[in-house]
């Protein structure tokens, strides 16, 4: 139970900037959000706060941030 919670906290603390640099250089990568955590990005979406990025960009960041952790478990 505690371990699962810690795991979830570490996921929510992921930042865009922690993604491999190669992938960050891709077109359309939302680099203005690189210092924000998954938790913060999700909060922006929930509050419909699109002052820093569009809804599409925020959605994209959520997917990008969830990706590495899921993949690491499969490697």
């Amino acid at each position, binding site marked *: 139970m505690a371990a699962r919670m810690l795991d979830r906290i570490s996921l929510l603390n992921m930042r865009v900037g922690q993604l*491999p640099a*190669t992938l960050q250089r891709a*077109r359309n990568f939302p680099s203005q959000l690189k210092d924000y955590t998954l938790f913060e990005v999700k909060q922006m979406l929930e509050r419909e706060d699109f002052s820093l990025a569009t809804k599409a960009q925020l959605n*994209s960041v959520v*997917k990008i941030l969830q990706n590495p952790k899921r993949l690491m478990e499969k*490697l």
Partner: protein
Amino acid sequence: MTHLSVDELVKRFEAARKAGEHERGNREQLRLLRELAEECPAFTPNLLYLARVQQVIDQPGRNPEEVFSEIQRLLELAILGSNRGAPVILELGNFLDTFQNDPLGAMKLYEEGEQKALAILEDAWFFKLRYWNLERTKESLEKALRLCALVEQVFPEPNTYLEDEIQTTKRLAALEGLLPDPNSSPG
């Protein structure tokens, strides 16, 4: 050149995975994985691994668009080679969704992967129920009854052989006194 045997393929794949033990996706590991992918593009576990690992590592000097197109090509090959296996279908769906801005294409793949996974789950549950029915002890039938409840939630219309096994569990459980006798009540 003769084709690698399955044993050799698995050994080479294991060696390539081991090469990333200390640093996942290092140059040597990528070289081994790519060599194997070229020699045997039909061996899908290697293609899937190579596609996954490149989404979590840095490759200085490489253009990201080139990395993305390599990942997509690997996943598409793996779909062909696996005769559209669920894990690869879902992996390509997620890749299109996350990196290629194609959520509609991704959703189609999620649905296809889901259908394949459910068919596998139906088989797994059929085999387990059959096992417990044949064991036919109080404990095994109790386990089977719990699984039947779950099956009915997930598959309101299970396939014929699963449905038959559920009915068998219920008959045996009634005989064991674990369920009211279905023949003793009018409903």
